[in-house]
């Protein structure tokens, strides 16, 4: 039951990428858990349980998505979201051309002083959540699966069927944006 509670929300998000409605995604998640229960004795620990559950989920969601005529090709979404120039940090924060080009002009500062951990305030958490909500779909999925749900890069790659490099680039863009939003938050706080 713990696993159902813990994994179902992110499974819903993954399923939703393949199928047209939340109701269908819900079906897919439920079917996946049923298949997991039925197949549990066949599960050999060659992969982690989580990898196995997500591969069942993706297979079912994909089949269902094809039947319902909506299958979002992750690979092309991933291509789209890893395309083009990207700056983890606003270029204005660095020294421009000439001596010392590329060095910090406005370096990052401490977010809080020890020993208080003001960082974990509700507002900071809200800020993180709203920034994640604003990310493009694949970046949002990857950062949620990796950093919020704690899945491995291997698990995310096989669930989303994307390359290791794409996974890392999506993660990099997502993390950089969330860090920047938090930095803004602390600068204003």
């Amino acid at each position, binding site marked *: *039951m713990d696993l*159902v*509670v*813990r994994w*179902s*929300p992110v499974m819903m998000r993954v399923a939703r990428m393949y199928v047209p409605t939340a109701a269908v995604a819900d*079906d897919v998640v*439920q*079917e996946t*858990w*049923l298949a997991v229960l039925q197949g549990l004795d066949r599960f050999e620990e060659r992969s982690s349980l989580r990898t196995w559950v997500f591969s069942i989920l993706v297979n079912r969601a994909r089949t269902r998505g094809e039947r319902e005529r909506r299958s979002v090709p992750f690979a092309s979404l991933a291509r789209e979201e890893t395309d083009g120039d*990207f*700056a*983890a*940090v606003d*270029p204005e924060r*660095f020294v421009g051309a000439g001596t010392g*080009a*590329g*060095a*910090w002009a406005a*370096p*990052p*500062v*401490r*977010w809080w002083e020890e020993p208080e951990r003001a*960082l*974990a305030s509700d507002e*900071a*958490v809200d800020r*993180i*959540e709203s920034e994640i909500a604003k990310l493009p779909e694949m970046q949002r999925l990857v*950062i949620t699966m990796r*950093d*919020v*749900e*704690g899945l491995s*890069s291997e698990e995310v790659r096989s669930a989303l069927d994307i390359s290791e490099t794409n996974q*890392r680039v999506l*993660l*990099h863009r997502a*993390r*950089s944006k*969330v*860090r920047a939003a*938090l*930095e803004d938050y602390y600068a204003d706080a």
Partner: protein
Amino acid sequence: MPDLLTRLFRRRGGDAGLSCQELVELVTDYLEDALSPADRARFDAHIAGCEGCTMYLRQMREMLELLGELTTDSISPQAEADLLAAFRDWKGAGGPPA
């Protein structure tokens, strides 16, 4: 795995060391342990002498810690109760709806 820093250096016209602006683009590869040993050594060498980049890496790690704590907060007790009830119904009914 292409040698990222080698490519950057080439573009910069020589092994002039890693700039802060270049380093921030490598932080994820660094944390994911995806840099070649040579690149990792360059990264570490820069960090060792750069307060700004040390702080950047620290912020990134602190943010990751916060993200890891989100799960329990982001699922409301109500949503959790609904989910559990839904699965109880579903098991009670002998399977998922057709």
